[in-house]
């Protein structure tokens, strides 16, 4: 038993429960077991993650279907607490317990969109159009308003007319590259959710 993996354990308990209830209904267990589908989690891919909400950082197990073959797309269908995690020991709160519906929220954004000045609607655009426009707007504003020297003639190299707020749940790696890019442009109006 101690050598058994979590997945084997689920497979055995799953089929045992199904087998015994089928036996109660009068089926022959030997025949019935061959018919029973394996418990869904047992053929899922298990991925370790951490909760994106508060800072307790509960460990998560995410279960997805899709076997990582070249053109198979994985989809997550279940998320639960990671029992190995020293902080949450497998538990989740009402927020974390609903995470599967965050991943699959109908309000997830799927495409770049554009709202023209004065308009009351979005229009879908391509990534190429979106990124070209953002880069162009930023360059125009930076070139027009960059301050190389202040009134006293001191070198200050700053750009004050465009600002940015960075995320609160993005990874260190996303935060690091965001800071590197934004500061190289000379931006000072730069904060993250920690300010609030």
């Amino acid at each position, binding site marked *: 038993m101690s050598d058994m993996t979590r997945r084997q354990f689920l497979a055995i308990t799953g089929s045992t429960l199904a087998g015994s209830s089928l036996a109660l209904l009068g089926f022959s267990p030997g025949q019935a077991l061959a018919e029973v589908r394996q418990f869904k989690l047992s053929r899922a891919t298990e*991925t370790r*993650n*951490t909760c994106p*909400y*508060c*800072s*307790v*950082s509960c460990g998560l197990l995410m279960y997805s279907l*899709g076997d990582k073959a070249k053109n198979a*797309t994985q989809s997550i269908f279940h998320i639960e607490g990671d029992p190995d995690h*020293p902080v*949450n*020991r497998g*538990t*989740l709160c*009402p*927020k974390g317990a*609903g995470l599967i519906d*965050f*991943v699959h*929220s109908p309000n*997830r*954004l799927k495409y*770049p*969109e*554009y*709202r023209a000045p004065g308009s009351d609607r*979005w229009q879908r655009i391509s990534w190429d159009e*979106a990124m070209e426009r*953002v*880069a162009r*707007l930023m360059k125009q*504003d*930076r070139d027009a308003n*960059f301050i190389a020297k202040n009134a006293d003639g001191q070198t*200050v*190299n*700053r750009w004050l007319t465009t*600002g940015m*707020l960075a995320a*609160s749940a*993005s990874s*260190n*790696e*996303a*935060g*690091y590259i*965001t*800071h*590197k890019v934004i*500061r*190289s*442009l*000379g931006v*000072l*109006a*730069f904060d*993250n959710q920690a*300010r*609030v």
Partner: protein
Amino acid sequence: MTNHWVDIKNADLVLIMGGNAAEAHPCGFKWVTEAKAHNKARLIVVDPRFTRSASVADVYAPIRAGTDIAFLGGVISYLLANDKIQRDYVINYTDASFIVREDFAFNEGLYSGYNAEKRAYDKTSWEYEIGADGFAHTDPTLAHPRCVINLMKQHYSRYTPEMVERVCGTPKEKFQQICQMISSTSTTTRAMTIMYALGWTQHSVGSQMIRCAAMVQLLLGNIGVSGGGMNALRGHSNIQGLTDLGLLSNSLPGYITLPFDREQDYEKYVAVRSQKPLRPNQMSYWQNFQKFFVSLQKAWWGDAATAENHWGFDYLPKIDKLYDMLQVFDLMDQGKMNGYLAQGFNPLAAAPNKAKMTAALSKLKYLVVMDPLVTETSEFWRNFGVHHDVDSSKIQTEVIRLPVSCFAEEDGALVNSGRWLQWHWKGAEPPGEARTDIEIMAELYTRLRKLYQLEGGAYPDPILNLSWRYIHPNKPTPEELAKEYCGQALTDLLDPKDPTKVLRKRGEQLAGFGELRDDGTTLSGCWIFCGAWGPNGNLMARRDNADPTGIGQTLNWAWSWPANRRVLYNRASCDTNGKPFNPERMLVAWNGKQWIGSDTPDYKVDDDPSLGVGPFIMNQEGVARFFARGNMVEGPFPEHYEPFESPLGYNPLSRNEPRAVSNPAARIFKADRDALGSAAQFPHVATTYRLTEHFHYWTKHVRLNAITQPEQFVEIGTALADQIGVAAGDRVRVSSNRGHIEAVAVVTKRIRALNIDGKTVHTVGIPIHWGFTGLARPGYIANTLTPFVGDGNSQTPEFKAFLVKVEKV
């Protein structure tokens, strides 16, 4: 957190104040339950509401929102008056014996050096007496009248139990009972942990509330010990990491600050930050500043950062003032900003005074929103009826909205409240065409670089020279970025003691910040993370949860900054000879040759205790400070000031000084001062907060959470409900001088009326989670009501104490 989540189980006493862990951090709160069940711990909760944390407390005390310094100052007064302090700790590990300058003074709520016109202090007198040798004067006998501890005694003698009751509304007997419980942890064998959150940060005196609590802990010897500490329960999964990485207007990674305009000279910039010891033999670790700074510049600008150009010092912008969120939105409201990028942040909902925010965003030329969800900010130009009534045709802002992946769709590390860097793995592709934040920022950069290469433009050097060594320039991998912020050798690093020996080969990951150099031969994008991805691989991905000592340290689970240290200042858990104060919960100890234990020592590992190096190695003093010197804007000791919207309109502690009603050194813009309301019009004290079932403004998009808590409500006490004729379930209008919301009234005994200096004051509770987008029923943004003023030091908005009026609709 100075400590970490699991360590809470080692506490003998838990004080939850300025937070509500049971509801906002439920799985972390389990460790309080664990301490109660298995360590005979007792729990104290001090809060305006009888929260779910309070419902399992041994003692609950009500307090008026915004008066925590009066309460904690009262605790300091009690500990000093009754000699309930850990004496050895206070004498040896704090600045209690340091002598303060003669011209330092405090009178009627104001410190020496106040300039009312500038709303700022000249802080020259807020300093120790410094001798000709550069060291501070001390008196270890504590007899000198200007010893820090004697000034403290004098300062807090005004904070009597009667004064606490008048200001806070906390019954005197309850306050004294709590003081007595807290004082029990002044022994070497008992520890108290303090758990707080935005209930302390979101005040105009928030930083000083936290300082005041830290002073209580220092008097009791509860900092640096297992089961103790000052434990900030951070509100989002990686604001700790993003703060560590310096994503704040005046910061660089690793708590390095940007240069001011006046700091034109690189050597002086370095000298000011390479702080020299203020006492003999002290480590004053910031003396290594240049190693951290040069390694950062090498990570960002590679070969273009040279000794000749001062490692690209001029590539960095210089600051003339703080461009925090409130300052920037005020500039935007004045029409002085053109563009804004919101990455995973919803400022229309998260910033104060929604009317001002809407006006400000409407003045932008362009807004770029990157988010996994439909935020209110991205749709600020659209009419949502009573919840957001705007005319789209009059808003000329161009908006570009980019879809972003969520946590489940990326690899990477987050830093939890306990400073653990934990790696996580991708489980699926993002929906539709959504991309990661990394891909978006990388492509934005490569496009800008190309435009500057082709067209030139304003000061292109820092853009063109940015080091971009990633295999796929538009798609750097999380692994590449993590290795870069951790640190690498740029040449073969030779052992200074034996130059025939190579310590690290060129390109090898570094084991820790001790290996960083100031000659351009190392890179590290964030020195405090150095070693997280070390020569032996990615330590953030470690998953060994073994806990051999049983005190919950799990040193091989993930990696904790700095240096995989789990409890900061842990040297202070031992006496001056290096013997643990409490052998039952040993973190570190001196074995005659080196420091050993269940944690990475916060000390030089082979420094003999007899050398007298203090345990607070980052401080110039080598010890912890009660006296903040010039490090805080409003004074060296925390002092009670009323919230900017006060139900009293005066400060009971300095009744005769109108300039000291509210924080005299907090910044407030004129239009925002004019938008403050008075108690005559808005008699009730409001405070905002989170619920168990929701996270911020996200989970209203999540079906399960939208079902469990579908509709906006506010909480009022039965006394107020009776007074205004409201029954449970009625709809009420809550107004401030900045706007109004309407919601269902929950009438509860959990919020009681308080007697404040002879006046009855009601508290109104406002959960924050609703808005005009999402699956839950549409609601009003709670920050319609809140004032546009922040903490004097951090500029965190005062969301936790402001004035409203409640009426039946």
